[in-house]
């Protein structure tokens, strides 16, 4: 088993950061922890990387116990924290060889593993880390986390604050690493990234809401969802919320996602209702639940 987490709880003073968290990550799996800021993702990462001790529960990483074998874990995992943690005034090259040395290895020894990623930043190898763009910093941090060839890689919000192009490239890199047999636990607040994981856990307020594959997790949504559009978004939301049979009303980009309490729901009835309220160009169409819909339903 790559990672095994059993009944982990952690509190800080009067804040319950994690409550009874349990899940497994299989060897070679790319597992996503999906939740907003403050959900407890970073606390969990710190416990699994042996930087913090849980109040209750147990966990193993690469078959090592986080308490008894913490030194083994440190040798066998890579950790990319959410905050850029490399040495700003060392160059790209210096950072990399620094981390290799710390782990008793050399850049050459494991170069094969990072090659794909490193060649993208190699043209800037003489540049100080602080002068790199966001996307390049992220690639360097990934190289440094990989340089000792870890069995398990922890990535805490690696794509936060990074533009869509760099995000996409980053996920492509993770997929390639997975093919090399590395187990990965990655956290993200972006619901759309969930689809790129093998399995995901939805997490909020220190609790896991659900664990499943991205394809299966949306099937847990209990209702049929409709995309509703009209000429005035603000009024549309208000009137939908006033509709007596509404089950949920959430703005979703150019649409509002609406679901109804009743099973036999008539699109025309809702359309007529909205039109009597003075809305124009009303369009209602059935749509599929997304991971965000599921998340909101579970978090209600």
């Amino acid at each position, binding site marked *: 088993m790559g990672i095994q987490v059993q009944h982990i709880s952690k509190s800080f003073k009067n804040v319950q950061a994690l409550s009874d968290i349990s899940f497994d990550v299989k060897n070679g799996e790319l597992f996503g922890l999906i939740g907003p800021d403050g*959900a407890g993702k970073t606390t969990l990462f710190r416990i699994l990387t042996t930087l913090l001790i849980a109040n209750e529960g147990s966990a193993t990483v690469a078959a090592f116990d986080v308490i008894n074998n913490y030194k083994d874990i440190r040798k066998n995992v890579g950790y990319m924290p959410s905050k850029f943690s490399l040495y700003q005034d060392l160059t790209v090259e210096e950072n990399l060889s620094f981390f290799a040395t710390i782990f008793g290895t050399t850049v050459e020894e494991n170069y094969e593993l990072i090659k794909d990623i490193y060649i993208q930043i190699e043209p800037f190898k003489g540049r100080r880390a602080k002068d790199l*763009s966001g996307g390049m910093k992220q690639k360097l941090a990934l190289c440094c986390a990989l340089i000792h060839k870890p069995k398990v890689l922890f990535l805490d919000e690696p794509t936060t604050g990074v533009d869509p192009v760099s995000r996409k490239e980053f996920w492509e890199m993770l997929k390639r690493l997975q093919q090399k047999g590395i187990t990965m636990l990655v956290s993200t607040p972006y619901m759309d990234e969930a689809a790129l994981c093998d399995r995901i856990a939805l997490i909020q307020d220190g609790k896991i809401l659900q664990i499943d594959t991205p394809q299966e997790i949306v099937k847990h949504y209990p209702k049929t969802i409709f995309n509703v559009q009209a000429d005035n978004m603000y009024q549309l939301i208000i009137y939908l919320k006033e509709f007596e049979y509404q089950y949920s009303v959430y703005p979703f980009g150019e649409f509002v996602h609406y679901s109804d309490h009743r099973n036999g729901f008539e699109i025309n009835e809702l359309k007529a209702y909205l039109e009597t309220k003075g809305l124009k160009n009303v369009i209602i169409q059935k749509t599929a639940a997304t991971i965000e819909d599921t998340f909101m339903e579970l978090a209600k």
Partner: protein
Amino acid sequence: MGKQNVIEVENLTKSFGDFTAVDSISFEVKQGEIFGFLGANGAGKTTAMKMLIGISKPTSGNASVAGFDVYHHTEDIKKNIGYMSQKFALYDDLTVKENITFFGGIYGLSRPIIKEKTIELIEELNLGDVANQLVGSLPLGWKQKISFSVALLHNPKVIFLDEPTGGVDPITRRQFWEMIYKTANEGTTVFVTTHYMDESEYCDRVSIMVDGKIEALDTPKNLKSQFNVSNMNDVFLKLARG
């Protein structure tokens, strides 16, 4: 329709030495419109926005915000706009009330008005129980709602939002967008800078900057059909990757 332009930008350019950060951009934003201003890191969004809020002088071109020129009337611009960023919002070690009083003062409101606005805001956001608590102790989602309302204290004509909902949970994020819709519906123009593509889906129109230039400007719906994709993320990828 027929509403007046609150932001007008014509060939606006900003260079630093021989690097052109913003390269002759032009667009208009109407009263009550929610306008998304998108671009990759380093595309020039921040530089452009700094010119619009009156803290950076353009190299060339013209722009006016709330009827004031960005070269000569920057103080008037500052009085007529609100600004909210995810990075800097409120003072964590002041209470909710103290923050409101402080920002009210900064915006030049009189004491009686600040008092009135404080009561209004606390009631509207349902903050009665936490009004005297330090902002630092509140959840992120609450802070964002308060900071949005604080940025509207002086009834600005335009509010600039810098990545307003990054990182918040999906329900709070939607409550936040409902506040934005309400504000826009009341006639305030909302200018959203972001590189979160799902935020852009909520805007009336969006512009996408690539290397200092505006490469696309339309409604999210039209952009998606123009590029034949299903979401703004893919529009962005197609544009930025060429």
